[in-house]
């Protein structure tokens, strides 16, 4: 069912865990669907210095959260915001059609975290 890349990513997922004192946090998904992700960001000079993710979810949820976080690490916030679900899925040689919603989730979590960060920055600048 899954591509080899998905399986590899799932076998050794990257960036799993928490960041202490993160600059931003976002949580998406809900327990009814069985997928929940929490993304932690550390930002420096508008770049994603570090990113971690905690995932309750299936193989593709874990694999996509690993792959998506890898793909944005070191990028500027604006670059990271451009990440699409398709790019994540493609980087994993595709996902089974029924599992595409998992790649949506990972990207959604990242975007939410970045937007959250930007909002906070705005507020700070306003001070």
């Amino acid at each position: 069912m899954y591509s080899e890349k998905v399986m590899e990513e799932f076998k050794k997922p990257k960036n799993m865990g928490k960041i202490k004192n993160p600059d931003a946090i976002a949580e998406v998904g809900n327990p009814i669907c069985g997928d929940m992700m929490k993304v932690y960001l550390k930002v420096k000079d508008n770049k994603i210095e570090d990113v971690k993710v905690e995932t309750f979810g299936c193989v593709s949820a874990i694999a996509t959260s690993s792959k998506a976080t890898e793909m944005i690490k070191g990028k500027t916030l604006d670059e990271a915001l451009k990440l699409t679900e398709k790019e994540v899925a493609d980087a994993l040689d595709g996902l089974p059609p029924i599992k595409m919603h998992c790649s949506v989730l990972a990207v959604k979590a990242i975007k939410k975290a970045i937007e959250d960060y930007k909002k906070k920055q705005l507020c700070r600048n306003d001070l």
Partner: protein
Amino acid sequence: MIAVDKIYLDNAATTQIDEKVLEEMQRVALENYGNASSLHSLGQNALEELEKAREKTAKLLGCKASEIYFTSGGSESNNTAIKGAAGKKLIVSAVEHPSIIKTAEFLKENRREVVFAPVDEKGIIKLEELKKEITSETALVSVMHANNEIGSIQPVKEIAELCGEKVLFHSDMVQTAGKLEIDLHKLNADLASVSGHKFYGPKGNGVLYIKEDTKLDALIHGGGQENKMRSGTENIPGIAGFSKALELAYKNRETEMQRQEKIRDKIIQSLLEIKKSKLNGHEKQRLSNNVNFSFFGVEGEALITMLDFEGIQASTGSACSSKSLKISHVLKAIGLDHIWAHGSLRISLGKNNSEKEVEVALEKIPEVIEKLRKMSSVKI
């Protein structure tokens, strides 16, 4: 054959065919390959082989040979029973196999009255509520002998009595044939389904028991085989394999089931030691080979896949594991919370499982759960 490092704990899904069964099938396929409808001796020999298998099967299930109808498996048997019974109202338990549930839903869409009878939190049917639903309009009640996911054994004797003489009682015995003693006449069931691949027999071979004088429409029309109830050239090698497998299962049933029960209880004891874990189904009234647990904060598909990396093959009722992305209707019917339901693990034992294998599995399972919980955003 089976790679030594694999530990197959998914015997409720299907089993590895017994080599003795395979040999029997091969013999029949090469020697008695005739069409049982053919008049010549090759055809008549095939017919004899067929009737021998029917006799054998009937004896093992406690009914007459003429009440055994060979089908292509449990799903076909279930569909035939449910669709073939004329009449207004059908009652099926909420924890039936999809081959009953989906068929009932199909009939409901096609203007039949269908009731899904509730079960309690251990998966046992609520007899009082079932009784209330049985009215003069009820054509058929279908309640499985034991559940394939959580292993709960239903009080079929009591249900048969509730149905009495006027309402057909069908029981899906796919998970119990070869495991529990079955005496169809004593039970007084009208219809019952069995499938060969669940007891080391061939896939694509099953039986529908139809009590004498029960009126039922055929599902597959044609050449009139199986006393007009199931047309199509009989798969006699498969049928011979089916009856052989059933015979082997019953030969050694008691000792083997006791052995599995001991292992089962050991697994249950061991998994209960994991924090925030929980046994699904009934503790006692359960199949000897079934263990079903939920682990909070872990998703089933991920769990199964990671166990597979360790060579352990099991199953889950998690939504992500199903084609519909819905959690198992069985776990829903017993009222399990979503998070718990997503974290379900089914271990189903078989005759080829050794205690040693299970020990290895019991070492690995807590490790894998620990690993997944560490990654999880749902903290225990």
